[in-house]
């Protein structure tokens, strides 16, 4: 039972930027007092979304990361093209060409010139820039499909378990626990071996289906507390159906958690795909991915270091960028995370 008085007269130590409209020193006539009391909304107020956007735009690391990610994505997809659509880059990732400059990168920063093969060529003369771009394309696709699939599954499982409780929760959460106790890499490798190699989307889907567990737990926790809130009781009292309560009333309030977890799962999906391909269970040649590129040429590290460095830099760049964006979103949704220690 709630104490009738406990919400009464909360005295905020730091008043919020509302109701500060009156200028000091004016002894107000009654009407003025009334205005001040009841018109306590101010001209200067922000909606939840605006506040979040504002804080996100001010997060420098996140903004730089966003620019990097957009640049990498645009570069990867326009340079060598997607499917039948050709890109602006002369070479493709399959055809070996005449080796120039011993296969070393022709990119030079001062004086700036791209040269024939900016990232160099591999042992049989394929253009390394085209291959890295192809690998980046594949890795990005896998990362985002995994991010979306795992977020959808995780949110659905968490929401159902958290809202219905009882046997639904027991069943779903034990299933989650079961997935958590199996080592992720082993599970992904086994499933990837069965399904992957032929179609990259199937591989991504499978990876998505084994990485939703963390989000499911997070969402369930949030919903357990939200379902007891009065606005949910109010919705139930009106006769709102459970589906509508979950989708319309509860989930929008967990959006912060979900978005943050989704970005972080994208970053970890890139790394998971990389490790899988490195181990030989992910993308199969002649197609390629960043992880596969590194694994194929790990022995060439001493003789042809660029074959290792370029895909490595792209993996690092994408993973860091997505992680920083996730950080920025988390700070934007939850200002408390951002506060320095008092």
């Amino acid at each position, binding site marked *: 039972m709630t104490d009738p008085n406990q919400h009464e007269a909360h005295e905020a130590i730091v008043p919020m930027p509302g109701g500060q409209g009156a200028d000091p020193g004016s002894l107000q006539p009654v009407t003025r*007092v009334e205005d001040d009391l009841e018109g306590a909304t101010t001209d200067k107020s922000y909606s*939840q979304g605006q506040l979040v956007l504002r804080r996100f735009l001010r997060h420098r690391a996140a903004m730089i990361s966003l620019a990097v990610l957009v640049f990498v994505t645009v570069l990867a997809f326009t340079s060598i093209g997607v499917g039948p659509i050709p890109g602006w880059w002369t070479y493709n990732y399959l055809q070996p060409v005449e080796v120039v400059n011993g296969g070393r990168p022709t990119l030079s920063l001062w004086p700036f010139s791209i040269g024939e093969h900016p990232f160099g060529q591999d042992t049989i003369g394929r253009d390394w820039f085209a291959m890295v771009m192809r690998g980046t394309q594949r890795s990005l696709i896998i990362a985002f499909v995994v991010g979306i699939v795992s977020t959808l599954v995780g949110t659905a499982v968490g929401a159902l378990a958290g809202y219905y409780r009882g046997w639904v929760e027991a069943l779903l959460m034990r299933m989650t626990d079961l997935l958590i106790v199996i080592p992720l890499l082993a599970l992904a490798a086994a499933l990837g071996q069965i399904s992957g190699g032929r179609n990259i989307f199937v591989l991504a889907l499978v990876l998505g289906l084994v990485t939703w567990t963390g989000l499911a737990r997070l969402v369930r926790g949030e919903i357990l507390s939200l379902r007891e809130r009065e606005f949910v009781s*109010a919705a139930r009292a009106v*006769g709102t159906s459970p589906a509508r309560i979950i989708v319309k009333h509860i989930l929008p309030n967990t959006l912060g958690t979900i978005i943050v977890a989704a970005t972080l799962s994208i970053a970890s999906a890139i790394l998971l795909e990389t490790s899988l391909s490195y181990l030989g269970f992910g993308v199969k040649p002649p197609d390629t991915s960043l992880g596969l590129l590194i694994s194929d040429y790990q022995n060439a590290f001493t003789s042809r270091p660029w074959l290792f460095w370029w895909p490595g830099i792209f993996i690092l760049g994408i993973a860091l960028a997505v992680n920083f964006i996730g950080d920025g979103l988390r700070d934007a949704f939850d200002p408390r995370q951002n506060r320095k220690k008092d």
Partner: protein
Amino acid sequence: MTVTTDAGTTPSDDRVLSFDGLDVRFTTEFGSVHAVKGISLDVRPGEVVALVGESGSGKSVTSMTALGLLPKNARVGGNVEVAGKSVGSLDSRGLRRLRGNDVAMVFQEPMTALNPVLTIGLQMSEALELHGIAYGRAALDRAVELLRMVGIPEPERRIKQYPHELSGGQRQRVVIALAISCNPRVIIADEPTTALDVTVQADILDLLRSLKDQLDTGILLITHNMGVVADMADRVAVMFKGEIVERGTVDEVLNRPQHPYTRRLLEAVPHLGRGPGQFGTSRHAADSVDLVGAPALEVKNVVIEYHRTGKPPFRAVDDVSFEVRQGEVVGLVGESGSGKSTLGRAALGLIEPAAGEISLFGERFTGMSAKASKRLRRRIGVIFQDPAASLNPRLPIGDVISEPMIVHGVGDRRSRQKTVYELLDAVHLPRSVFNRYPHELSSGQRQRVSVARALTLEPELLVADEPTSALDVSVQASVLAMFTELQERYRFACLFVSHDLAVVDLLAHRVVVLRDGKIVEHGDREQVLQHPREEYTQRLLAAAPVPEPGEQRRRREERHRLLESLGDEVTALQVDPQREHGPLDDSTRE
């Protein structure tokens, strides 16, 4: 008792606490907020100065400066002196010595003011040891003595207990015992009774009164409750938006207010015993009540239990029966833990009764098909206590109000919008709030939105669970006036759950008094609130303070007589005879 030396106190200056031109600004994400605008205020020994104001007026910020407890983003101007020491000039060590020795604080919520994982004894002896008053065994003995002083029975047993094992009133007594443990010159009591039930509030106020009389302590009482002011204060300062707009003796301010804000504040306080007709509401008679048809709500021998693991279930409502006729407002009154909110939720079909039956318009939720229960829910509306919690923060106001229509498939987009605009007009909100979010509105406006949402489908029964207790008095008054106006217009039946007798007196046709899940008294408003038959109702009524000092003094004495006739003691500080200065108030003498 050890009296600490008050170094630096000039004997000629008898002020124990003084604010001189105090000015506080906070730098926030959105720029600077001017919370306190150059106020001056003094507190003398043995005197209670009440600082009155509504939320956001800066009264708590003012009190925090006396303890040097403001957050880092505050800039403090002016001078604050406690027992002759300027707070601003002290380093952190000096501040720590100041807190407790010279000035102590009694907080609003005793549950959060005490550490839940430490025993009462440990927390009290810690305070004594930190200030070098007593150590070890002696500190514990002193703690027992202090608890006995504030009227806690069996203090030897209590010091071994944890805060959650004590009742709310006893916890607040512990906080007061902590506050007086180092014999401070001045006590700042920040809403000391707001979180307490009205009978407990009266006891705590009695205790504070005897404390200042016997220990000659100055008290700065911060409150929004005019009844508490009338009961306790010698002098009053009214604060509004960071400024003191009026000051004077309690009689001057409460009986002859000069400033329009003070007048408005006082007019907004509902007076127990005046009944309907306050705030320009009409004196609606019982003629709107439909005595013929099926009652809107019928509660018959209802038992509601909460299951606890490893323990027998907790019986929150025990064999309760009453009914709400169509068009009638029934006030469900009780203190915290009486089961009144549980009953309200059960009436909405949110909780299943363990036994007995609840029927709405002759129909019952139990065993009803989902479709039929949805149809029944169309006829009821609900208003909850906390407007911040009962509105979905992610939905704009227009969607909040039209949500019930969407759920029940009423009308199309345009007609829904039209209805929302009509409802906004009805609850006196500008139409421009349609696209605003709940956090952009003040709490009074939010509660108006809840009322509008409750009325969207023109319900025949409204369940209102403490709809005004989270609001400031002036906002409460306007919400209540609007509520009675709407009730006359729509003629809905209403189960009005409240702990505030004055509010119920203003609205209800009939009153049900609940205690520990059982009905104590039940009858017409006038009969229950003016000629109560039951002892418990009499106690409740006697404990409710009224905002007029003379009348309140009379009521207080009456209450003390009532307590004596019922064989209870009047709460007072129990001080050793050799220390006693002789209580000024006759009623506190044993």
